[in-house]
């Protein structure tokens, strides 16, 4: 029987912009062709290797790992024989990227020879001296002459020539199809990607495109006729494949080793630290505490993870010693060891958290400890890791940036030769949230009348295909890899755009699958806000609150949350949260944990939010689909809300072992393709049936669990976040000015634009004071007035001033006293880092108003004074400079002008809301003020108006949009159904001030307007777009 044909040269879409198929598509096609093995050989890397490995294994295809690399100007295919060969490949790829422009890799034969060993090499060269050179450097038995037949005119004689050359050199021949897509139909997308890579249209890219569609994955039946007379070349790939065995299991080499004091082992040292920590955290130390601690330490000892905890303990210790605010989150909060080591801040005993969600004896992957650090300080922590473990053993995890709708539209359209103007219109009009159907989201976009229908059809199909395709590599926000062996033996490492940073070619999912240690250190601006606010509270009150000692029981805090007065509060300030809080009315910390967990796509898609609320309000009985569910879902009134509950359902209802149940839970939280999801469903359903759970209940349960596919929260994670939510709510209630300053000084962050935060402060009776040259600081600070504390807007809210400019103003003032006049300011700061535009902005935002001169007059001829022309004429003091003629009488700035200027220069208003100036017109049009809406009856027709501050189109809401309008009195929530939205899409999306007619909808203390008609308020100068638009 003839040897099967296997493909050893294939590019997935991880050969960025040169591969037209996902790794799993290639694997599936190989399985359909009954190909026993398939190689992945992406350009310059192994980015898709883990996905390839997993897809092939599931389909019974043997995965081969390799790469295509440019060596002395020609492509060489390298195939790893085993883990050692793979390590050599990684080192070589790292070198090849080291001194090249970002995203490129090339090297020399000398370097390839330095890293030879357990690698096969395939070369499609036609130059005999080159083939001989490869053989001499790399070993004759390892080098193969690669034959192609892509039905190009010259292919037949090139092939024969190469065969003859190989024979002269004593080299074996191997046939490949240099695959760039899995099926011929994908060739079009490949052409488009090539055009994008060359920043050209398809017409212009002509010479770079393949002349036909023959670069698809072919099985033996297609390959044999093409290589008639060269049976050996078709059999050799299988011989090579049989010698390869790379499993990428790095579990044994994952820990970098933690240095412990003499006489201690990692575990004994951990034990000691835990019992020191327990005395800090628990007073008194109860039996349940010691019992739980003992149990966790036993599991840690059995799983060999003592060093993992020490590494994280050390990290948090460093953070504390250097004043870096930080806290652990995620499932680590399930662990009392993490709590007593100071890694997390949530007491797992008090909050009834499941340790097994975090760690159990059967766990084969490393548990996740994610840590949030203050954004301002995170870099310090990252540098500490690099220095402590060494540059060889540390690198950032990569993030693959993929095509999203707007990018797809622009780049695919450009390749097809569409005009820039058309693409701009299409891209801006698209709802960026709907990746499922690009055409649908471009519904209002009509192709130009002169465009052929076929072109438009190509465009739509190609946009759909390219969504989620890898585009290029970037760094994952906070994922760092720390390894026991040098990192370059485990994965290729590339220089990142940021100096001094190295990025690994694996993303966070790959890293987890390979059993490597990833430390997730995310920058959380809220922690910076909290740190700053605490310092400001110390300044204003003399005492710095200790948040660790907060009792988490302040009824006033819970009442504020129940009223949805939560703008600025971590995790519970979104529109969706504010619509739910008055209905769930959290009264305890645990209620807050639920609140943080439920407003997520997971529970909403799993149909969990509304039943929970109904049950909480006593409107619906608490029921369980099956008795087995009661102990699992009792705490959440019979509704699945937590990932821990999925584990328990998988164990106790579908009969899975703990390790498998956790694997099932993890698999459900990933982006799965259809094949993978269907396999999980079969496993779950058959487990349920074996437990005598009726089929319809099992189906229902699986659908509910499936809703957690991406974002379901784990209880401990929700608890950690709820803690920060409580703390920020507490600060907002008891120290609103200091907290408000913290928020404004750490933008961009959170849900709302700074102007909304200022309006909220004003509505609570606090004053915001405008920028003042003598009273403002580099940032917003509390200022004591007779009436109490107010927020003084800082120089950080003056456009074009810059950090150096802000500092210069304040430093000079500290040195030599307040500025006495505008000229005084000019003379003292001339030559400093403040440009003319910034000076003009300071004047026009009113920074000099308190010094008594009208703004426009100050600017008359100021530039001459600023540039010191007087001095060049030998005049010592600037105030002696006199201009030709006197300044004309200039119109004064009225309140509306000042308002507009403040919006333009500071992006906020310390005075009236913009809508205040439109109020007369709006009243004449019959628009209600927002504070009048609570009195309106359900179903009453109303007209509302305001500045759009958020636009939301959640993917779970069946294309319904939610807008929030703001006026001088408050906010209005508006719901827009698809048919209404389609009618008024352009106005709704683009105009800043809207007038909306609709019907009042009230339920459980929450109200909104269901829109029927939308128009813009014309004639008001546009403020800069400040709406938060999101999915």
């Amino acid at each position: 029987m003839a040897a099967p044909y296997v493909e050893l040269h294939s590019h997935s879409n991880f050969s960025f912009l040169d591969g037209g198929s996902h790794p799993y598509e290639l694997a599936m096609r190989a399985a359909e062709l009954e190909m026993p093995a398939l190689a992945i050989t992406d350009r310059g890397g192994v980015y898709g290797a883990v996905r390839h490995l997993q897809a092939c294994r599931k389909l019974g295809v043997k995965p081969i790992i390799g790469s295509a690399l440019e060596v002395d100007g020609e492509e060489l295919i390298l195939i790893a024989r085993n883990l050692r060969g793979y390590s050599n490949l990684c080192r070589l790829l790292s070198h090849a990227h080291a001194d090249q422009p970002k995203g490129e890799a090339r090297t020399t034969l000398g370097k390839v020879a330095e890293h030879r060993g357990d690698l096969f090499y395939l070369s499609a060269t036609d130059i005999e001296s080159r083939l001989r050179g490869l053989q001499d450097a790399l070993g004759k038995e390892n080098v193969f002459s690669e034959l192609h037949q892509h039905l190009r005119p010259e292919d037949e004689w090139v092939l024969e020539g190469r065969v003859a050359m190989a024979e002269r050199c004593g080299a074996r021949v191997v046939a490949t199809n240099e695959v760039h897509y899995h099926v011929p139909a994908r060739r079009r997308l490949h052409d488009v990607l090539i055009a994008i890579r060359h920043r050209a249209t398809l017409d212009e890219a002509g010479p770079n495109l393949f002349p036909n569609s023959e670069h698809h994955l072919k099985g033996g039946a297609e390959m044999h006729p093409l290589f008639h007379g060269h049976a050996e070349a078709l059999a050799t790939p299988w011989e090579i494949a049989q010698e390869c065995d790379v499993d990428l299991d790095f579990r044994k080499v994952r820990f970098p080793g933690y240095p412990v004091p003499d006489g201690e082992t990692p575990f004994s040292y951990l034990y000691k630290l835990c019992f020191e920590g327990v005395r800090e955290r628990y007073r008194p130390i109860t039996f349940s505490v010691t019992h739980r601690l003992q149990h966790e330490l036993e599991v840690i000892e059995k799983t060999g993870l003592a060093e993992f905890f020490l590494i994280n303990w050390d990290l948090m210790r460093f953070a504390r010693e250097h004043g870096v605010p930080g806290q652990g989150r995620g499932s680590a909060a399930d662990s009392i060891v993490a709590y007593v080591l100071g890694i997390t801040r949530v007491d797992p005993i008090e909050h009834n958290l499941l340790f097994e969600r975090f760690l159990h004896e059967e766990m084969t992957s490393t548990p996740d400890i994610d840590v949030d650090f203050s954004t301002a300080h995170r870099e310090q922590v990252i540098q500490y890791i690099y220095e402590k473990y060494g540059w060889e053993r540390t690198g950032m995890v990569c993030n693959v940036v993929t095509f999203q709708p707007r990018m797809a539209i622009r780049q695919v359209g450009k390749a097809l030769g569409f005009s820039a103007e058309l693409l701009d219109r299409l891209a801006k009009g698209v709802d960026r949230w709907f990746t499922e159907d690009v055409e649908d989201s471009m519904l209002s976009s009509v192709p130009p009348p002169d465009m052929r229908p076929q072109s438009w059809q190509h465009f739509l199909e190609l946009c759909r295909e390219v969504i989620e395709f890898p585009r290029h590599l970037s760094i994952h926000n906070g994922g760092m890899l720390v390894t026991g062996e040098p990192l370059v033996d485990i994965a290729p490492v590339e220089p990142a755009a940021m100096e001094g940073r190295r990025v690994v070619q694996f993303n966070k999912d790959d890293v987890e699958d390979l059993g490597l240690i990833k430390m997730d250190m995310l920058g959380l601006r809220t922690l910076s806000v909290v740190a700053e606010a605490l310092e400001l509270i110390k300044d204003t009150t003399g005492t710095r609150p200790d948040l660790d000692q907060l009792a988490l029981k302040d009824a006033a805090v819970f009442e504020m949350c129940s009223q949805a007065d939560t703008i600025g509060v971590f995790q519970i300030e979104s529109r969706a949260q504010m619509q739910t809080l008055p209905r769930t009315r959290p009264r305890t910390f645990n209620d807050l944990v639920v609140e943080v967990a439920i407003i997520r796509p997971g529970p909403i898609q799993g149909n969990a939010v509304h039943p929970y609320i109904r049950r909480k309000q006593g409107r619906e009985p608490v029921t369980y689909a099956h008795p087995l569910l009661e102990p699992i879902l009792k705490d959440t009134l019979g509704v699945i809300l937590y990932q821990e509950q999925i584990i328990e359902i998988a164990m106790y209802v579908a009969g899975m072992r703990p390790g498998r149940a956790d694997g099932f839970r993890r698999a459900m939280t990933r982006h799965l393709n259809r094949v993978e999801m269907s396999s999980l469903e079969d496993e779950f359903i058959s487990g349920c049936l074996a437990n005598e759970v009726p089929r319809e209940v099992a189906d229902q349960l699986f659908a509910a669990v499936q809703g957690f596919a991406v974002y379901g929260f784990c209880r401990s994670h929700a608890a950690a976040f709820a803690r920060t939510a409580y703390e920020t709510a507490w600060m907002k209630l008891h120290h609103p000015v200091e907290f408000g300053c913290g928020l404004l000084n750490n933008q961009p962050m959170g849900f709302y634009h700074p102007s909304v935060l200022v309006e909220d402060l004003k509505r609570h009776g606090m004053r915001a004071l405008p920028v003042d040259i003598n009273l403002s600081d580099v940032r917003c600070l509390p200022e004591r007035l007779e009436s109490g504390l107010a927020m003084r807007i800082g120089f950080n809210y003056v456009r074009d001033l810059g950090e150096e400019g802000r500092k210069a103003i304040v430093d000079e003032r500290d040195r030599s006293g307040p500025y006495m006049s505008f000229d005084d300011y000019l003379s003292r700061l001339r030559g400093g880092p403040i440009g003319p535009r910034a000076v003009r902005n300071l004047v026009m935002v009113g920074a000099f108003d308190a010094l008594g001169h009208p703004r426009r007059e100050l600017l008359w001829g100021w530039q001459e004074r600023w540039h010191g022309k007087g001095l060049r004429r030998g005049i010592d003091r600037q105030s002696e400079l006199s201009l030709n003629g006197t300044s004309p009488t200039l119109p004064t700035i009225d309140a509306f002008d000042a308002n507009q200027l403040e919006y333009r220069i500071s992006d906020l208003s310390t005075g009236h809301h913009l809508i205040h100036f439109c109020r007369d017109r709006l009243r004449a049009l019959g628009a209600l003020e927002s504070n009048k809406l609570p009195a309106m009856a359900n179903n009453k027709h109303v007209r509302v108006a305001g500045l759009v501050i958020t636009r939301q189109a959640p993917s779970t809401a069946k294309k319904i949009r939610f807008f929030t309008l703001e006026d001088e009195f408050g906010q209005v929530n508006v719901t827009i159904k698809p048919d209404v939205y389609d009618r008024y899409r352009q106005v709704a999306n683009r105009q800043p001030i809207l007038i909306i007619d609709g019907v009042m909808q009230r339920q459980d203390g929450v109200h909104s307007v269901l829109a029927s008609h939308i128009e813009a308020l014309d004639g008001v100068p546009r403020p800069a777009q400040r709406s938060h638009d999101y999915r």
Partner: protein
Amino acid sequence: MTRLITPPAAIDVTLGPGGAPESISGAFTGSIDPIARWKVETSWWDRPVVREYWKAVLNNTVLCELYHDIARNEWFVERVYD
């Protein structure tokens, strides 16, 4: 010397058992002995060209290139080597 035939000359083709052309008639007539084959598929985004080309010896004497326009299922002689 090679002569490009413009416009390409339409012919009828009889295929052999393997799917390769065996004989032609029309503008050119006689037996066909194929010696090379290639495929061209381009301009799918504009005016698609999908052709299978054959280099063949006509009547044992003349080398020529013919192609099968796959979309229209028509055959043409495009080039003759004099």
